[in-house]
């Protein structure tokens, strides 16, 4: 007998933000970066998605994994931080934002499939980057995530230096994203960069043809 028609794959595949995400700390702030490709199987359903989501004025998170899961976590924590900052009557700490993300990621780890990198600036500890993969919580000088990150571990490990300033960090982020987007089929599109420091938050987009090129271009 004929097999039942299941329709095109991309209708039933989970929508993932294939993704490359990165966040790095410098003295006085952080820089976050992401690509913009959202894929459902082999179909690109959104080529310009901004995966850097604000949790508070000076705290952002980078989304990877299941698009719905990641977005929902980000929106929940954004809400929780809004209430929290009103209750304590001051700007929340980056660690608080990261802990809130971690608590959701850990509690629902069997049901969720998303990894958020939390990064931002607060008065007490200046720039901080936290990884929350699988429900852990750890502060790191920089963090990479998403399917594209596998292709650039070697690059970031070799190129990272302590004590880089904001501009060097921005360049580091752009280079990493560009390399990952070149090699990873699930990453691509444009690069979004967010820089946060004591003075404010700056969002930037770098279009495909403005990205740095390497040996094959």
């Amino acid at each position, binding site marked *: 007998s004929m097999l039942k028609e299941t329709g095109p794959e991309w209708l039933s595949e989970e929508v993932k933000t294939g993704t490359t995400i990165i966040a790095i700390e410098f003295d006085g702030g952080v820089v976050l970066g992401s690509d913009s490709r959202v894929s459902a199987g082999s179909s690109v359903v959104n080529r310009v998605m901004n995966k850097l989501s604000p949790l508070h004025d000076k705290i952002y998170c980078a989304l990877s994994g299941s698009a719905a899961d990641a977005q929902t976590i980000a929106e929940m924590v954004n809400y929780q931080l809004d209430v*929290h900052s009103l*209750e*304590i*009557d*001051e700007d*929340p*700490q980056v*660690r*608080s934002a*990261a*802990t*809130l993300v*971690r*608590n959701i990621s850990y509690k629902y780890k069997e049901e969720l499939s998303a990894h958020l990198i939390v990064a931002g600036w607060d*008065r*007490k500890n200046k720039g901080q980057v936290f990884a929350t993969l699988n429900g852990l*919580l750890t502060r790191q000088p920089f963090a990479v995530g998403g399917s594209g990150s596998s292709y650039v571990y070697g690059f970031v490990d070799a190129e990272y230096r302590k004590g880089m300033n904001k501009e060097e960090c921005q360049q580091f982020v752009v280079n990493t994203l560009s390399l990952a987007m070149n090699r990873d089929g699930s990453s691509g599109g444009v690069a979004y960069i967010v820089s946060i420091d004591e003075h404010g938050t700056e969002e930037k987009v770098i279009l495909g043809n403005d990205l740095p090129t390497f040996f094959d271009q």
Partner: protein
Amino acid sequence: SASYDLSASTFSPDGRVFQVEYAMKAVENSSTAIAIRCKDGVVFGVEKLVLSKLYEQGSNKRIFNIDRHVGMAVAGLLADARSLSEVAREEASSFRSNYGHDIPLKHLSDRVAMYVHAYTLYSAVRPFGCSFILGSYDKDDGPQLYMVDPSGISHVSTHTHARTHMKEMTCREIVKEVAKIIYIVHDEVKDKAFELELSWVGEVTNGRHELVPKDVREEAEKYAKTREQADSMFIVGSI
């Protein structure tokens, strides 16, 4: 106050809630607890009346630890105060669990004050018959001091009552002054025996709230006893 003082859910014609005022009387009639915020920390002192010679020294503590960084000194009904210290500990613990860091003192004070206030709204319960002082020290925010009374108001300590020079003194110096004050306010005739409970939180303890070490306490008591007849007296944040 004929029939307007029977429950906390009744106002008197002149807008008072007598049950709350009576609860405050329990604090007024209690022995003294004070806390002084100084340059590098907060020092607590309590005039702990010893009701029986059969009690072990150090029993019925009136200074509590809330988390690692907050101290709480109480006056009034000790049983009520103990119950509130558990509430404060629970608040601090769940804050740490949710947000990953020490609870800010103002927030803790607001939360416990809200809890105390809730017990002034219903006739089924009575208000808490105690006031307490919360203090902490943080290297970024400095020393902080809050007080909560039975009506559920959280007061922040300002320097309006303190003489200026106390602001500039360190914990080690203030410990002696706190001991002195407790000895001065203690009425030898009315209440016989008392124990001086002293604790501090500040740079000297790296931000942890602890009972003052034995040698520091002995030195403070020695100072207090010799200066009892002394000169001017200031009581700050005292209840």
